[in-house]
């Protein structure tokens, strides 16, 4: 078991024939991901990377039974692409695009309300279930198969965590990059909940950053549901000054509650094993799992 994606996922790429789409779709296919086609309006009926291209997501769903879509569409058109996928009945939409206006995401979030689909991202590295499916832009080789679920707002910090997990002799069940924008489809709490309900996942690494209240919400939920699995947490940006945006659109300290220190304190109080340094994430998870099995 794993969460969100596996070897049976039927994946399409929106923005398939563009530079980004082509490059990453190639990497995904090389990894062994079940990419069943792509969508580029106006290029329907052609083939690209030996797979069919469709004009609409709807066509891809009908003809290929697609259930997962990954989006590499430029920011100005990405909200539209997400809504098209939702309307077509795609169950999991992974939006990689960085730079979507907040106003567009407010509409997207409203559009998705009550629909049977999950959005991951935007502005995220995607989702990977090692050895089965890479639906994202992450370097696949870093992720070894195992029992640790990773949820993270950041791309390279996710790779860092996965690498440390591997060096600690452990592996990853699924890694979910939820994205660094102010409005994202799947929150930290929702991603953690998926792992709590996944029989294969034995422990969770939760990586956050300054800005917003997602980590605190997740921490309180973990505690209120009885700390069912051990969670190791890290918050990036302990040294970030207030009011300055640190790369990610959502990484900005707006008040006393969204600093790294405040979040780490809440996480600790909720029974999460907080790693103070990003260099000891692997060591901490190994220690926690050691204790569990002993």
């Amino acid at each position, binding site marked *: 078991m794993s969460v969100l994606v596996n070897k049976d996922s039927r994946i399409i790429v929106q923005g398939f024939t563009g530079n980004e789409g082509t490059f990453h779709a190639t990497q995904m296919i090389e990894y062994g991901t079940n990419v069943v086609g792509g969508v580029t309006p106006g290029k329907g009926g052609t083939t690209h990377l030996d797979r069919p291209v469709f004009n609409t997501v709807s066509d891809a769903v009908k003809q290929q039974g697609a259930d997962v879509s990954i989006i590499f569409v430029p920011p100005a058109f990405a909200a539209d692409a997400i809504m098209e996928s939702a309307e077509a009945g795609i169950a999991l939409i992974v939006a990689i695009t960085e730079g979507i206006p907040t106003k567009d995401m407010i509409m997207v979030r409203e559009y998705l309300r009550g629909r049977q689909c999950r959005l991951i991202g935007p502005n995220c590295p995607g989702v990977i279930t090692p050895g089965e499916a890479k639906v994202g832009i992450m370097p696949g080789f870093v992720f070894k198969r195992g029992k640790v679920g990773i949820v993270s707002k950041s791309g*390279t910090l996710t790779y860092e965590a996965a690498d440390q997990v591997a060096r600690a002799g452990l592996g990853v069940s699924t890694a979910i990059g939820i994205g660094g924008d102010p409005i994202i489809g799947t929150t930290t709490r929702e991603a953690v909940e998926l792992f709590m309900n996944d029989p294969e996942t034995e422990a969770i690494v939760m990586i956050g950053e300054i800005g917003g209240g997602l980590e605190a919400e997740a921490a309180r939920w973990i505690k209120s549901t009885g700390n069912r699995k051990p969670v190791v947490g890290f918050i990036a940006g302990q040294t970030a000054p207030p009011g300055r945006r640190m790369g990610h*659109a959502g990484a900005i300290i707006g008040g006393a509650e969204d600093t790294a220190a405040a979040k780490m304190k809440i996480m600790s109080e909720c029974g999460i094993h907080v790693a103070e340094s990003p260099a000891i994430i692997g060591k901490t998870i190994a220690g926690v799992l050691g204790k569990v099995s002993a």
Partner: protein
Amino acid sequence: MNVHEYQGKEILKRYGVAIQEGLVAETADQAVDAAKKLSEQTGTQWWVVKAQIHAGGRGKGGGVKLAKSIDEVREKAGNIIGMNLVTPQTGPQGKKVHKVLIAQDVYYPGPNPTSEFYMSVLLNRTTGRNIIMYSTEGGMDIEEVAEKTPERIFKEEIDPAVGLQAFQARKIAFNLGLSGNAFKEMTRFVAALYKAYEHTDSSLFEINPVLKTSDDRIIAVDAKVNLDENGLFRHPDFEAMRDVLEEDPTEVEAAEHNLNYVKLDGNVGCMVNGAGLAMATMDIIKLAGGEPANFLDVGGTANAARVEQAFRIILKDPNVKAILVNIFGGIVRCDRVAQGIVDAYRNIGNIPVPIIVRLQGTNADEAKRLIDESGLKVYSAIELKEAADLVQQVVG
């Protein structure tokens, strides 16, 4: 993107928000002309001279002065233009004032008392919807109001499917204790303000104070407007409002090279791929006993040209005593990055501070060998822990 008060008000006015009128000036002479013109346009007898910088609390630092004659306009504008204005939001170093806004006096006497309110529009990140936050306590620090009298702060959330509704505008006006003409004016003000926020892809409006004048008009006396950078492509005219004098010159230069750089006041520079890892690297520096001198995300393509540019940007800061390069090579190969570092180092010539390079990911071992055999004064590491220890060694 931040804009000045006068630019923010210009944006608000386009959407029908009533504002305290004013004209911008860069010299005392221009200020005098502006004051005369403003009197013709609005009939104002007095003028407010307001420093235009990207920071709040200007009044507290002496950047907002009332002038009761043209001579006083000249004198006060002359004093404020060119001054180094220190406010609670500028930090101790302050900000140089290049422009003033000569604004009409809106606290004139009349049949009714004046009152000041607070109003802002912003995103509620939890619900993913915009809210209008408002308070009866205008003209004060809103954080302080929130702490001492939270019951005086109200919030109205907007349903994106239908937008701001009339009943919501009425509720706001009632909660602010208004009646009669002022009530009607407030409902119009709120509707226009929200329309402006939505249409301009803004990420924050803060109007403090919103004034009820003695003749029951409702106007924005100040305007803090932040525009969503991601939405700027839809508003090409806003780009002209960017005031690079308000930004750190090194940050401006970095942005021209598409490097995401934020200057900080520490002694260890860093160059990282990815925003999250960049923040984590700053944390590593701190935990190792140093202080981060910057945030710098070189992005996914860490080639020689970019690495060189990034080195040059970091080295502009004289406080930098060491540089930590932390690249997690995924799709970008570490040996290529390492070659880029070696080339950049040779191109720049003599880099006067020690450099610690941590390359992890694809071909990390080859990369380390490349660095070690380059003969340059560069320390190499593969694991993050090793890099942290090296930072400690260098700064300790």
